[in-house]
């Protein structure tokens, strides 16, 4: 089964981190991604630019409404994702727990809809 791991973190806290911690987390991400690739579980993954660069798009009554910012203001913001292939939810949860941001923020684990 494929799972989308959505990485949520408080952007302000993230930016307030000292350089040493930032570098350490960066290294950890590198190591984690490599291990997921080695395990054959990596399908996709990337970091997102901050919510200040986000734009929201809605179409209502044929009209395109474009606004500045993420779709909702939340305490923790979406900052990245991994799309992984895992046997079951427990395996996906184990991967999510190893994501460096898991100890600062929240990882949402969502199964991908599979068509028969």
């Amino acid at each position, binding site marked *: *089964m494929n799972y989308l791991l959505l990485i949520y973190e408080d952007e302000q806290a993230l930016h307030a981190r000292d350089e040493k911690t930032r570098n350490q987390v960066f290294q950890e991400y590198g190591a984690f991604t490599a291990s997921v690739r080695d395990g054959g579980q990596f399908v996709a993954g990337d970091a997102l630019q901050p919510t200040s660069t986000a734009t929201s798009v809605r179409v209502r009554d044929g009209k395109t409404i474009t606004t500045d910012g993420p779709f909702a203001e939340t305490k923790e913001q979406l900052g990245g994702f991994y799309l992984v292939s*895992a*046997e*079951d*939810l*427990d395996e*996906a*949860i184990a991967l999510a727990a190893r994501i460096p941001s898991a100890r600062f923020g929240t990882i949402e*684990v969502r199964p991908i809809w599979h068509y*028969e």
Partner: protein
Amino acid sequence: MSTSAYELLQAVLKADRARILSSLIRTCGGDFDLAEEALHDAVVAATTQWPRGGIPDAPDAWLLQTARHKAIDSMRREQRARLKLSELGYTADLLRGKEELTPIPYDMLRLIFTCCHPALNQEAQLALTLRTVAGLPTIEIARAFLVSEQTMAQRLVRAKRKIREAGIPYRVPERTEMPERLEAVLLVLYLLFNEGYSASSGEQVVRQELCAHAIHIARLLSGLMPEEAEVRGLLALMLLQDSRREARSNARGDLVLLCDQDRALWNRAQIEEGLGLCDAAQQSPSGGAYRIQAAIAAEHARVAIAENTNWNRIARLYQELLRIRPTPVIALNHAVAVSMASGAEEGLRLLGALADDLDGYGPFHAARADFSRTLGRRPEAEHAYQRAIELATNDPERRFLEGRLREMQGAAIPRAR
């Protein structure tokens, strides 16, 4: 259907339904609904075939085998079956008839851990455990939790859907996951027990029976996981608490304090079993929270009269408990034990530190009231009783506190303990 065949079928279902189901769910690749339907069909088949063909030598095996075949037939009929069958590693063995004939105990562990998976919300865990492990009909579970049958049915449907769609696996957690996962299971059992324990004698029997179900599952789990001391600890705690069931309230439904209970009404068999588990647990070094709470309950159960209670040991046990669970409520219980062991002055002193945290908690003020009263500090005691009465969460509790207040106001001198 002849009476004896019918009675046997009922008896087998009562004793073995959960075990049969636990193995069947594994056969069905973790699909609870498919397994339940197949078992239902097998039971229907039994009602027609057993009277005709005679009662099988191993009725539980017959039901399991029959249900398996019905499940496979059902899977073959559905288009998704082709994918599912190929996904199941052991299906090849199954189709070749190599599966074991009777339910295997390990499957029961798979069932319990899956019902209590953290990806399911607490309500779902409770409902699913009662439905599949305890085998309660949906309507009874609804009554036990004071919701409509429809609400409970929906809760179960959603829980099973989450298992299917999120891919919650039907397995026993690995060693590394076990501490968290076992904690979740024990919490479910503890919550079930508390629901039943808090149900007063006026309430529906099905709610009171939750204690029996919790104890039954804990006993089952203890047998399957003999190396886990906390399981035995929880079982001991529940047995010792349940042993006091008959003595907890009087004919009017009023609360009877532990020290005032008629100990002749305590269930001896449960106490014996509980004490046995506690004494055996003393061997293991790790002091888990349930094990410590059981040891505290054991101190009360050991003695024939309240006056002989070893409050010093209880106070030490609460101190041990505080180290792993530093909560204000446990600190309150510790203060009460200290008061009983070393005097009300000492108890009041400890309570002082908890005033901020527990101002909204009735029992805190009740304790303050009792300690103050013992020391002859009437105004303080009165004020504290009033607060406790305001904060009382049910009638028996409120009536009890009002009684204590009236008693004190009516007495010429404070009663010595």
